[in-house]
Every structure is written in structure tokens, then in C-alpha cells.
């Protein structure tokens, strides 16, 4: 194998409940401005009308029209990728030949697939159904990027449920490290639907009111949607073209809980293994980490488990490391979550600010870390760890550092 290359983030892009753009998302996170509200695109009355993190209606309409996408996941991914490329100072029409995409998702183009299922019994227009089937594939958003940006390198779609976005950035990093690609668009995407809300409602995982990660009163999560995409480049090549690296991807690790299909390992075994793997991959110890972006869904089990896992990885230092969750800002965006949270880590490293965990007010004896209550905090962050956990016991951890 070729010597390991260094990989840097040179651009970021986002679509979320905070609106269009990574800047809108980051500002909402720093200001602690929650973007959750009752649904507008579908009726969720049967499920208690939960507050969700929908992409704002005007942004949604504009993206569907501008991208010409058949369903929203591809539209979100395309918009986030366009922004990330622009942010990186790259002309989307002239990317290096060895450019690829790795996109994580839970459901891919599911809304188109659902539409195709509805129309199967009335196939007056076979071409229309065929179009929906293609757009409905799990890999459809990744292939939409490949097609739009004429990517000729590796194009992968990965699906580790809610750890998908983190996994995608990690796998993309490995592609560049081994010299297979010079540039990879990496991130995650998912769009909301009744399907998802019904499922989490059935599992009694939805918050009854506010989402309160790590707070004693927490009782569930709020769902969201969107996309996060980062431009990853081989460091020397990025510097040669005059790009400004925003952060370096130092390490990535993943794991399986080997415990339960929907519940996390109570002692955080899988998260501990993923975090250790990321630190090992970066050839660094836990002492280097100065900020942790937690999965922090707001469910009783996840937040307790994650707090235990952080203490197991960082020992006595755990209580001195700021830990935040941005889920109250944009909701749990499933396949996009890890990618949006990597963008939070990039922002913390770039701007020396750690966003607060919104709605955290009453400490829980089982969640006894520094969750950055109240307001954002100024802090020089040279190493940030992002953690993700998922159904079926998948976990992923990404270590980002100052470039």
C-alpha cells in the first residue's frame, strides 16, 4: 500500500432545520437557537404531533426546484455538496480526475421508492415508475453527486443507520489516505417522512416536549432531516492549489455492540471500542482530546450509556472535557447526523467556540459530565472527537484536529 496520506477538510456544506448553509447551521448551534417545530409537510397528529426539525418550507421548495431532484434526499445532498465545493474554492465542473463521493444514509431516496410502491398497481406510465425506482435506491443520493459533479473515482453509499454520516467521512478519509482518490465529497443525508416518525413513535423514543440531552428530565428525541457534506482532500495537494485547510481528519473507528438490535450496550462497550479505534488510528492518546461532540439524542438510555462510555475512555479527565449535543437545534437527522456533527467539530476548531447543549438545565447523577449548559463557550480546540451510535449496535467515532 502507498504511504498514508494526510487528509484535510477544505469545505463544508449543510442543509438542516436551521436553513440552507453550514453557516446558518453553525450560527444556530452557537447561539443555541432550537429549530424544532410542528411538521408542515405531513400530518403527524396520530403520533402526538411531535416537534421535528424540518428543513424550512421555502428552502425545501427552492432546493427541489433548483436541483431537479425527484425526492428530497438527493436535493439536500446536492445542495450541501455544491456549498462545500464552493467553500473549498473549487469549480464543480473541473474537479480532479480521482474524485469520489462517500455518502451515508438510513433511507436513501426512500420517498421516491414509497411513491413507486403506491403507483405499481396503476402503471399507466412505466417510465415514471422506473424513474421513481431508480431515485428510490439507497445509493441514489450518492449517485446523484457522482452524476452532477462527474465523479469518476470511488462512489460509495454506506448505511450504518444513525452512525452513517460519521462512517462515510471515515471511509472517505481512508480512500484518500491510501492514494485511491485526491478528493472525496463525504457526508450524510436523510429526509423526514411519516415512515420514520411512526417507527420512532412505536419505539416510544420521541420526546414528549423539549429534547433535553443529558438532562435529568430527558424522555426522548426529536427527529430531523438534512444533509452535511465536507470536501476532503489530500493535504499536500490542497495546499498546492492554495486551499485553506479547515481541519484535519486524524482518526476514525467503528464497532458493533454485539448486544441488542435497538438498545445500546448499557455500559457503552461499542462506543468505547469505536473511540479507542479512532484514537489508535490517529496514533494519539485520549489526553489530546479537548472537545467531544456527543451523539446525545436525549433518550434516557443513549445519554446515560454515552456518558459512561466517555468516562471509560477518558478516565478522570472526562469531567473536564466539554461535551455537547446539537440535536435540540436541528433534531436527530439520522444518516446526516454524524456529518453535521463533524461540521460542528470543524467549527469549534476553526473558531475556538464550543456550542451549548440547549435545554440542559437539571443534572442527572448518571450523566455527570460538562455538557456546556446555557451558552457557547470560548475554548481553543485542537482535537475534537465526534461520537455516533445507531440501531443494530453500530458505532463510529471521528477525531478531527487543527490543520
Amino acid at each position, binding site marked *: 500500500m502507498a504511504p498514508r496520506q494526510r487528509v484535510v477538510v477544505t469545505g463544508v456544506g449543510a442543509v438542516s432545520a436551521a436553513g440552507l448553509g453550514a453557516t446558518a447551521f453553525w450560527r444556530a448551534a452557537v447561539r443555541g437557537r432550537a429549530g424544532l417545530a410542528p411538521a408542515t409537510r405531513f400530518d403527524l397528529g396520530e403520533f402526538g404531533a411531535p416537534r421535528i426539525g424540518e428543513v424550512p418550507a421555502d428552502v425545501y421548495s427552492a432546493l427541489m426546484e433548483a436541483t431537479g431532484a425527484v425526492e428530497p434526499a438527493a436535493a439536500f445532498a446536492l445542495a450541501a455538496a455544491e456549498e462545500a465545493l464552493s467553500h473549498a474554492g473549487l469549480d464543480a465542473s473541473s474537479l480532479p480526475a480521482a474524485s469520489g463521493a462517500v455518502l451515508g444514509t438510513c433511507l436513501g431516496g426512500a420517498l421516491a421508492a414509497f411513491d413507486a410502491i403506491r403507483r405499481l398497481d396503476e402503471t399507466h406510465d412505466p417510465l415514471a415508475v422506473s424513474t421513481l425506482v431508480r431515485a428510490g435506491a439507497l*445509493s*441514489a443520493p450518492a449517485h446523484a453527486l*457522482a452524476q452532477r459533479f462527474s465523479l*469518476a473515482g470511488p462512489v*460509495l453509499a454506506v448505511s450504518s443507520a444513525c452512525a452513517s454520516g460519521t462512517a462515510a467521512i471515515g*471511509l472517505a478519509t*481512508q480512500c484518500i489516505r491510501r492514494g485511491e482518490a485526491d478528493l472525496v465529497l463525504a457526508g450524510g443525508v436523510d429526509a423526514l417522512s411519516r415512515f420514520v416518525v411512526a417507527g420512532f413513535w412505536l419505539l416510544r423514543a420521541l420526546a414528549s416536549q423539549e429534547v433535553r440531552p443529558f438532562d435529568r428530565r430527558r424522555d426522548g428525541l426529536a427527529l430531523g432531516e438534512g444533509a452535511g457534506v465536507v470536501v476532503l482532500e489530500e493535504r499536500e495537494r490542497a495546499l498546492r492549489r492554495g486551499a485553506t485547510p479547515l481541519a484535519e481528519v486524524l482518526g476514525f473507528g467503528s464497532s458493533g455492540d454485539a448486544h441488542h*438490535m435497538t438498545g445500546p450496550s448499557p455500559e457503552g462497550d461499542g462506543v468505547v471500542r469505536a473511540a479507542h479505534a479512532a484514537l489508535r488510528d490517529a496514533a494519539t492518546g485520549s489526553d489530546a482530546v479537548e472537545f467531544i461532540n456527543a451523539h446525545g439524542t436525549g433518550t434516557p438510555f443513549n445519554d446515560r450509556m454515552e456518558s459512561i462510555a466517555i468516562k471509560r475512555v477518558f478516565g478522570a479527565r472526562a469531567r473536564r472535557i466539554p461535551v455537547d449535543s446539537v440535536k435540540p437545534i436541528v433534531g436527530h437527522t439520522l444518516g446526516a447526523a454524524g456529518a453535521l456533527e463533524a461540521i460542528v467539530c470543524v467549527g469549534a476548531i476553526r473558531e475556538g467556540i464550543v456550542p451549548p447543549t440547549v435545554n440542559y438545565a437539571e443534572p442527572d447523577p448518571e450523566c455527570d459530565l460538562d455538557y456546556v449548559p446555557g451558552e457557547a463557550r470560548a475554548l481553543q480546540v485542537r482535537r475534537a472527537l465526534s461520537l455516533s451510535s445507531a*440501531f443494530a449496535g453500530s458505532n463510529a467515532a471521528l477525531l478531527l484536529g487543527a490543520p
Partner: protein
Amino acid sequence: MRPVVLDPAPAVVAASVLTPLGTDPRALEPRPDPRAHPGTEVPVDLAQATGEPPLRLRRMDRYAALGLAAASGALRGAPAAPAGKGDPEWGLFVGSSLACWSSNARFFLEEERRTPLELSPALFARTVPNAVNGEISIAHRIGGPSQTFVSGWAAGAEALAEAAALLAAGGARYILAGGVEAPDDLLRRMHGALRGDPAQGWLPAQIAEAAAILVLTADAEHAATGPIRIRAFLRCHDPLGALSLARAAQDLPLPPVETLIVANSVASETLERWRLDLPGAERVIVPAATGEIGAAGAPAAAALAAARARAGRTGTVLIVARGVEGATLLLALAP
């Protein structure tokens, strides 16, 4: 495209294949006499193949059960086994094009037709593509790196390539890697609708179910027991991908190409259209034997390559996998 040459090259030390032809990878061998269509279902008792209690097996969908059956079969033939709860030295990489979509479609239709209280939370829990990783890791205590690839029909080849690269980089000691497809009637109807597009009319009429899982390792002690190793891979995303990759692979520092195994009908179509000729190389077309088996095609082909190598074949085997949307991957294996 840039080849990834693996050093150390991970070996295939065990394999399990479930196709409509049964469990013997040599059933994929070309035959002079065209046989009757083998059907689209795997003729295997999954309770026996998985060793799982009926109650636990009933909680899985066909996708997870087929994957678990193949993983269990591969581990039975492996020179080592996961130890403890969540062994971090063992990883699990699975690829699938359709993944859990039978369960997704069922949940979608139930949600449309029933009241919320009539819906099944257990069914929703199956609607993540990595459900197969969850079931396998729980059953076999696998706690190391875990990924699920859903890049269309090339996804099983992606799982093998990414697993091999991680092993070569020292990221795990063993990885179970392969592909699973479990189409049901509704998904077959959707596939039929896809063929309704004149541009896709060449697609095969049916997608069959299948699972193929290999045990890979670069560990010096156990790799020596494997008959064949994954030496390199190349991938790209372009209309002529299979052709470009097969040509580029001939420049790899490997023994002469003895066999070209085409894992999917879409790869076969590209190669035929452009008349790729690898002098002296036998061509094996997996879907000609099994019908289209999607992401399970490349791992099944790798199992066939391992069986042939165990029988004394020494040349390089190229496996080409390609999805409908253009993602193409070529694996180069040699003893």
C-alpha cells in the same frame, strides 16, 4: 483510476455461499449444457444454517437471516472464532443493494393502511440496512469494525475491498465480509418496473436471493491457510468502468490473468458490448449460473476463486462487479 495494491494481502480463509443453486460455490462454474433456471430462492433450511432458536429467527427478516446463515457457515470453516462479548479483533463488512427493503416496504404499506397502534415496532427495527450486521454481531459476538455498504450491485465487492484494505492497514485481525440480497415479490415488481424504461430493458428479468460471506485475515499464522488472497482492487464510476478496470488490471504486478469472473449482468453487458478480450483468460459469468444475485455476486465469485485455488489453480482471478448506476469495482485475487 488508481489501483490499491494490498501488502500484506489478506487471505480468504473460509467462505460460505447460499444461492438458488445451493451452498457449493463450484456450482457457479460454467457448464456446456444450459441448465434449467434454478429459481430465485435459496433452498436451505435457515434454522439449521443459522443454528438460531426459531423464536429469534422469526424476529429477523429474510435479509438478516440469509446474512446470518452465510456468516455462521463461514465461521464454521474458519481457523479462529470470535471470543468474549464483542471481540474487537473481528470486524464485519456487508454489502447489499436491496438490503432491508422488503421490511421497509412492508412497514410503509402497514403505516399507510393501519392505525398507529396496529403497527409493529419489531418490524420497524428491521428497517435499517445494518440490521444484518446487528444480527450477525449479536449471534457471533463480533465487536470490531462494522460497516454496511449499499452502493448497488457493487456493494458486496465494496465490502470485500474495504475489509481487505482495513486488514492490510492493521485495523482488524479478521473480518467477515460479503454480500446479501433478499428480494421479495414486491421488490421484484419494482425491478420489473425499472425494466419498463426502454433504456433499462436489458436488465435481467429476475433478481434472485443469495448470500456469500468470506472470512478474511492478514494475520500471518492464519492467512497461510487460505488458498487465495485479495491482492489489489480498482474502482471507478464511469460508463465503461468494467472495461477500463479489466484493462488496467492487466498491468498489476500479479501472475497472468487466468480467469475473469463477471459478478453481475450489468458488468457482463458492458464487457460484451465493448468486446473485452483477455487473451488466455477463461470467462465465468455468475448470473449465467445463478440468475442476477446483485451484491452477493462478487463475494460468491471470490468463494469460487478460493475453491479453484484450493484445487490447484494458480493464476490471477479478476472479479468485476458493477451496479446499474455505474459504480464499478474490480478485485484481483491470486494465491
